[in-house]
């Protein structure tokens, strides 16, 4: 009887001891004289239960989690390898509600097998999209992406097909594809999951983009905080190069791909700062125009796309634009890998068509808080995203609906805060983060953020007044309209949404006299 054991090699699983879990399980198997095949698969993205171990005794994969190294002895004593252990048993993996309720297009393969197993990738539909692109030709490939309605998943939501078309029609001897894998937004990890669990789908997406626009060179700019992703990407590239599918001499399409590593600067996720960084300079934002599409990396026409945008295109090409565009609502087509984070009972990547309400995502899918306390605020879209109160939980997850409520979905991060949160402190942190990460190019961002921290410190020290709150609003206005990029320009979102939706947290810090005035 063949016995297969899956223990993810993903960073979140390893952060909970997955390597030791795997070692302990294999040692126990050996002690019992069992012949066990260990597969270090990618994560399925249900991070709350990592390490999520799966056992296949020949009748499907049964999940257990979280199997930390300390749990192994107990499980084995219960008869784990005979399929008898009940502790931590989550049942057949595809029946786990958090996974079952998803619509996985981009993440269809995440967690199924060893992320570097090319045969499995092909078997599970890999390279169908690329092959169809080759048969369609360049213009029709771009048209397909346009028709899918895919919008940039990095934050700004710009239509991917239109960007590709601009680069395709630009005349130049050299063009580039740059994958933005800087994923700096706190509360987000979907890019990481793609890179660690299914690196080939990202590479295939970049090959499709390269073919479609006529680019022969690509770069993946990955943040240094993701050491495992960097390693897996490099190994995935090597696998494809060995197969002759990737590289300067690859056939039928020559495309050279290189991983470059960021250096701990949030602003380098901004596309022009990223290009500066790739060219070897400080990550300072460039003024636009010129657009990177026409005047990008090393001055050449460049497609710069988020990991998720690129990784969505193999499905779109393989299954057709219609199959993608059938999902979603309004102008938000397809699926979004929503990332449930913070104090949440079921956290991880939840890929779903646009349109679920924020409340569905947090309370139903996410199961509310992990701590058991009441949900109080949810920050959507990373550090530059607005804080939403429960009152706005009916907001559907789509670009326009969030914008209409003074927010943004950004890269899809949803961070849940319980009722112990002090929203005045969160507003302070928004300013602080902006001050730490500002590239320094414009005064409202560089100086305004520091003034914001000082102003909130005054308030938090109990020395504020009504005028202090006015000053926060003024500063926010100045930053909103006087900043070159969204770091300075959007920091007002978390600040002002905190003030608007949770005014009591600010008023609480006012000296008693001033507070009376407020309510007078």
């Amino acid at each position, binding site marked *: 009887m063949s016995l297969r054991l899956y223990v993810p090699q993903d960073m*979140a699983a390893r*952060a909970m001891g997955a390597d030791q879990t795997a070692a302990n399980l294999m040692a126990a198997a050996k002690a019992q004289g069992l012949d066990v095949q260990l597969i270090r698969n990618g994560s399925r993205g249900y991070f709350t239960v990592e390490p999520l171990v799966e056992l296949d005794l020949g009748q499907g994969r049964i999940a257990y989690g979280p199997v930390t190294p300390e749990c192994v002895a107990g499980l084995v004593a219960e008869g784990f390898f005979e399929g008898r252990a009940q502790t931590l048993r989550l049942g057949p993996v595809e029946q786990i509600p958090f996974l079952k309720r998803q619509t996985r297009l981009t993440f269809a393969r995440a967690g199924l097998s060893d992320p570097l197993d090319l045969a499995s990738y092909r078997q599970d539909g890999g390279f169908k999209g690329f092959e169809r692109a080759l048969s369609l030709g360049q213009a029709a490939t771009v048209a397909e992406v346009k028709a899918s309605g895919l919008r940039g998943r990095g934050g700004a939501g710009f239509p991917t097909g239109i960007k590709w078309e601009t680069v395709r029609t630009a005349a130049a001897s050299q063009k580039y594809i740059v994958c933005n894998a800087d994923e700096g937004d*706190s509360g*987000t990890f979907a890019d990481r999951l793609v890179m660690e669990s299914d690196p080939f789908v990202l590479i295939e997406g970049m090959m499709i983009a390269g073919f479609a626009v006529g680019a022969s060179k690509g770069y993946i700019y990955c943040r240094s905080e993701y050491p495992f992703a960097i390693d897996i990407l490099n190994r995935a590239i090597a696998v494809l190069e060995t197969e002759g599918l990737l590289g300067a001499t690859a056939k039928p399409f020559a495309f050279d791909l290189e991983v470059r*590593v960021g*250096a*701990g600067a949030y602003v380098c996720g901004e596309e022009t700062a990223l290009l500066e960084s790739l060219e070897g300079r400080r990550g300072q934002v460039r003024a636009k125009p010129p657009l990177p599409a026409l005047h990008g990396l090393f001055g050449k026409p460049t497609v710069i796309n988020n990991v998720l945008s690129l990784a969505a295109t193999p499905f779109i090409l393989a299954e057709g634009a219609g199959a993608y565009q059938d999902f979603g609502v309004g102008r938000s087509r397809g699926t979004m890998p929503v990332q449930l984070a*913070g104090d949440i009972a079921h*956290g*991880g990547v939840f890929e779903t068509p646009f349109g679920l309400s924020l409340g569905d995502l947090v309370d139903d899918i996410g199961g509310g808080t992990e701590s058991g306390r009441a949900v109080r605020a949810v920050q959507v879209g990373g550090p530059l995203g607005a804080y939403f109160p429960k009152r706005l939980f009916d907001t559907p997850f789509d670009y326009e609906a969030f914008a209409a409520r003074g927010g943004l979905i950004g890269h899809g991060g949803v961070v849940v805060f319980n009722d112990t949160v002090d929203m005045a402190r969160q507003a302070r942190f928004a300013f602080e983060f902006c001050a730490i990460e500002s590239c320094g190019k414009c005064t409202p961002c560089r100086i305004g953020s520091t003034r914001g921290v000082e102003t909130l410190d005054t308030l938090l020290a109990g020395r504020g007044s009504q005028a202090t709150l006015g000053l926060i609003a003024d500063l926010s206005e100045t930053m909103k309209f006087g900043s070159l990029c969204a770091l300075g320009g959007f920091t007002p979102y978390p600040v002002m949404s905190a003030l608007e939706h949770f005014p009591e947290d600010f008023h609480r810090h006012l000296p008693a006299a001033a507070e009376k005035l407020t309510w007078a």
Partner: protein
Amino acid sequence: MTEIDDADVSDLILRHAAVKGALLPLLHDIQHRLGYIPQAAVARIAEGLNLSIADVHGVVTFYADFTLERPARRRIQLCMAEACQARGVADTCAKLEAASGLKIGETRADLSLSLEPIYCLGLCATGPAALVDGAPQARLNGQRLDALIGEVVR
């Protein structure tokens, strides 16, 4: 810079010089090899890549990953970003500070330990998260935090 370091740096410069946009990959290699970017290396890099010392210095100081000082032998890089805040990193940080005698952002004078802030490791559903000597750790409260303190902070 010792002589060995010097040879290392020259070798690395040679290896990267032909690459487009070589400065960051080169700095990463040096930082990785030596643990920091020695002042002397800055001049060598500038010469090797045909840049001004000011250019190289400007890049080194712009990025949080590059440091001009020797690193501590043990490092705890604690995520201080929002999702970890929502999961109680303030408590975790306070306990680490109390146990280590450091404030976040400080390094011990004898270079035995540093406690550094970092902003998001993509472990946001299972925070508080940290890199400990480069290895990821999650759910750093309760027993797991005690174990970390016992092992690293002392």
